[in-house]
């Protein structure tokens, strides 16, 4: 979706154009969902955030024209995740929010297609975020290094390569089964 189409769709959704909603949803919902999921590690919460972000695009049409839809949505998502985390997660105990990693997601999904969300669980948190930010949002490594704070460019590239290698192996194993 081009920037012009994105801005056009923003105007249409205020008028209740369902096709515009569909276009925005199908283009960005998954990206927003996986970005929230890699940070919150909870599918239901990630769905809530993603829905909130997509619906809030209605208000975006009142602001100035969005110049970079992907950057706009990425920042919106990350901010909503931060607010959500502060609002709900800070009150929970560490045990409650501890990430329950599946022992073998590939084995558990033998009957169905392997899910990307499960594969991401094999990656450490920082590699998962780097991978999702670069693959889904096309954020350059230099920008990721700046956001991650303290990581050098070469570290970011190394972590990304490692994440790719792990995921490739997992996908290969899943396909062989």
């Amino acid at each position, binding site marked *: 979706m081009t920037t012009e189409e994105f801005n056009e769709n923003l105007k249409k959704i205020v008028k209740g154009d369902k096709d515009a909603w569909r276009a925005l949803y199908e283009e960005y919902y998954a990206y927003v969902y996986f970005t929230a999921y890699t940070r919150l590690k909870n599918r239901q919460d990630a769905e809530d955030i993603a829905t909130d972000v997509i619906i809030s695009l209605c*208000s975006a049409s009142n602001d100035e024209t969005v110049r970079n839809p992907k950057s706009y949505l990425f920042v919106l998502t990350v901010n909503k995740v931060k607010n959500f985390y502060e609002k709900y997660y800070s009150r929970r105990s560490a045990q409650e929010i501890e990430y329950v990693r599946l022992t073998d997601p590939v084995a558990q999904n033998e009957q169905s297609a392997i899910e990307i969300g499960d594969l991401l669980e094999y990656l450490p948190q920082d590699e998962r975020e780097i991978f999702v930010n670069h693959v889904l949002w096309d954020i350059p490594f230099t920008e990721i290094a700046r956001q991650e704070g303290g990581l050098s460019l070469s570290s970011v590239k190394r972590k990304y390569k490692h994440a790719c290698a792990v995921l490739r192996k997992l996908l290969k194993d899943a396909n062989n089964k």
Partner: protein
Amino acid sequence: MSRLKKQFRAAAKREVKDFDSWYEENKTAIVNKQIYASQTTPVVKKKRFRLAPLLSACATVAVICCIVFALDVFPTVRKIPVNDNKATTKNPPGESSGQEVVIKEADFTADIKEIYDNLVDEMNFKAVIDDLTAVKTDGVLTNFKGQVSVNNVGSYSIDIKVDADESYNFDGKFGTEAVQPVKIDSFNVWYKNETVEDYMLKLYNSDTHGTCFMTVRCGAGTQNGIDPFLEKLCRG
């Protein structure tokens, strides 16, 4: 785009709910948001004129000019011979004998006369040193006070204090404690509105040449007009 990237993007889109079920689930929230958005007046952001960077730049230029002026002029002025009316008793360093000696105008203007005479000829504006007097308090400091006029801009009161004894301590003697100084090289610089219509710039320098303290006072709106004059003096 790499194969893994394509594969991951496609899988990510496959794994989320289809649009129709999502739309039905969130229809109420979507309609509410649409109603709210359609009723809200679009925000037109006005570009605000930012005065702070301009003022900051003007202040910086003024401060730099004054510093260079102080560096260039004071060492020359301090070489001026003073009348030999020294007290016969020697005072401890940094302490005044209380004896004040008026320095002859001919003595101290000789060095700077050449500079400000050229101003009239070379510059588009006319800057005139209306009045300048120097009083040396033995064992303490030499105080130059004067008035400089720049045509069509305004009049500036200049007060320059140069230590006569290196051990004399300027700290706390010129009412600058209330304002936090900015350190630029070896200078402490205070710049503030003394009253609504009165600007004051103070410099305090302690370097190898000794110590000097300068106050430039002027009315509101004329604080930048001294710049060309100071710049000229600096170039000498």
